[in-house]
């Protein structure tokens, strides 16, 4: 690795209440992690979901372009993986390498997985992880206090839910053949939302093999930070 190294990270379905340990490992090895300010995921008041997925791509690309980081490697987790895959498929010049961590975007009727938003809100976080819910997710936005914290959590969930409602399939299977460069596909074998079998649909459509992370749930970089960081570091080093 030489010179200034950076990659963009697009967060998962529960937002990014704190830097993930995996990203911190990478930051410790000299990578600058650029996290764009995605509308709604920050819990800020006044958020209105875009009318449709094209609207989402527009606001996400605006946020990405505002960072000034592109072109560079892009890492996307969960819903962020879906957005990252479309960025690479539709703006290939912007993405020098693509790492997808259990991305949404392709739904498999034979493996529907858990409908996160058909759970009471208080029960959702436990299903995103194979291990204990990491502390930052126990009380997301808790720093805003007992009145505004729950509202911010709600807004964050509105953003994520509007991206994936009702199935989390935005037709990515029909576009991922356009992925231009090197792609890494990681998947937790304990993913309740997107069962590991769904990864086969990505492999079929994109021609990318899946690398399984044992003992990890949907937000796998939180369940297995060292392993995910290692695989990301190796992949990014080859960019």
């Amino acid at each position, binding site marked *: 690795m030489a010179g200034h190294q950076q990659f963009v990270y697009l967060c998962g379905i529960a937002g990014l209440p704190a830097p993930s340990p995996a990203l911190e490992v990478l930051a410790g090895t000299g990578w600058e992690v650029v996290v764009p300010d995605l509308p709604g995921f920050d819990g800020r008041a006044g958020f209105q979901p875009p009318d449709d997925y094209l609207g989402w791509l527009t606001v996400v690309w605006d946020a990405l372009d505002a960072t000034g980081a592109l072109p560079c490697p892009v890492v996307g987790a969960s819903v962020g993986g879906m957005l990252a895959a479309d960025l690479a498929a539709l703006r290939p010049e912007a993405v020098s390498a693509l790492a997808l961590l259990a991305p949404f975007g392709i739904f498999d009727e034979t493996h529907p997985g858990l409908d996160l938003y058909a759970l*009471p809100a208080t029960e959702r976080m436990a299903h995103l992880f194979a291990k204990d819910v990491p502390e930052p997710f126990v009380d997301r936005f808790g720093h805003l206090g007992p009145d505004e914290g729950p509202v911010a959590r709600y807004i964050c969930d509105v953003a994520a839910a509007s991206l994936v409602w009702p199935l989390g399939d935005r037709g990515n299977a029909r576009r991922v053949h356009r992925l231009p460069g090197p792609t890494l596909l990681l998947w937790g074998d304990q993913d309740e939302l997107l069962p590991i079998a769904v990864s086969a649909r990505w492999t079929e459509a994109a021609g990318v093999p899946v690398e399984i992370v044992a003992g990890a749930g949907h937000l796998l970089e939180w369940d297995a930070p060292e392993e995910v960081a290692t695989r990301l570091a190796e992949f990014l080093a080859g960019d």
Partner: protein
Amino acid sequence: MDTRSWSRPTLSPVKLLWFHLMPYPELPDDFNKKHRSVWVDIDPGLFDPDVMADCYERYSDQLVHAEECGFDGICVNEHHGNGYGLMPSPNVMASVLATRTSRVAITVLGNSVALYNPPVRVAEEMAMLDLLSRGRLISGFPVGTSMDTAYAYSVNPGTLRARYHEAIELIMKAWSATEAFPFNGRFTQMRYVNVLPRPLQKPHPPIWIPGGGSVETWDYCSTNDFVYAALSYYGHLMAKETVSGYWRRVEANGKDPNPYRLAFLQFIGVGDTDEEAYRLYKEPAEYFFNRSLHVYPGYADPPGYVTEASARARYRSQVRTVARAKQAKHDLTWDEMVEKGYVVIGSPDTVRETLTDVARTFNCGHLLTMLQFGNMSDELTRYNTELFGDKVAPGLRGLFADAEDHWWPANARAA
């Protein structure tokens, strides 16, 4: 045929409407123990089509019977994948009722317009119903519950309300436009909007908006001069906060406190005596509240279904949280249902006194009576309806006789 506009009203006393949910009456005794939810993913194997065919016949007869008993209007509504409300298309049932009745308002408290694309289909069917009923239609436009919209019909809750408002805008314009027009909405684009037939009532049938208690809906109703129909199943005591909140927004929006701006739903059981009513309505009430209202809590809170303002208010409201928690346990006793006002029961005098107080306190000119609920038999339903019509309704007729109902169909007539 009189085709006068409902916007030119006459003085009229309180309106009494008979509301039917059309429940499935044979859910098993252990339903709430062995099944997760009465809604969305309820086991279709529980439903016998022959039983439901009999129900449709019996229930539509009951609605016709309400006209014979002197009620001013009859009501149908819309639910999907629901074991206590088996009218996925209220318009189908309303078309039956429009031709089997001659006097009452046909009150369709569906359609959840955001579910239909293009929404002009709703404009067309409402116009047909207005013609079939010869100008007796009330057109209700609920947002729809989260169960119906976000889950049973998979509409994105984050854009549901924007779709809803746009759909109503399109329908209203389609009813009044003098020529075909293009519509370039955020969710619906049409080159040619030309709804035929048009409604008989001009400029359009009265618009009622069923709602649960959001500030946005109160403002939407009052600023657009639509009726707000408070449709909680939990009775008048629980509804006080909702109704007072609505009237505060009416005042804040500079509108008059006309009692006919409001409709309110109440479960009711009338007997010859208080004791008889207590005995008669226990079983159907327990069936409804403890068995068929068994809704999986996960379907109540899809992100985006309520606005940020309503979410903020909800997180600060202890009252509703407690009520929900209690209901979710399915352990309500009959005494609790009565005490909390979920069901108003008693002799004709008792019921009349309570409803008079409710109507006056709420300043409510449209009383929606739920006189069939749960697994109530046809015989008891008719008994309840007849007692109400004969002995309760006359005592309510003096209410609001000096007010003008701007929201009543042109050709609906009193008995």
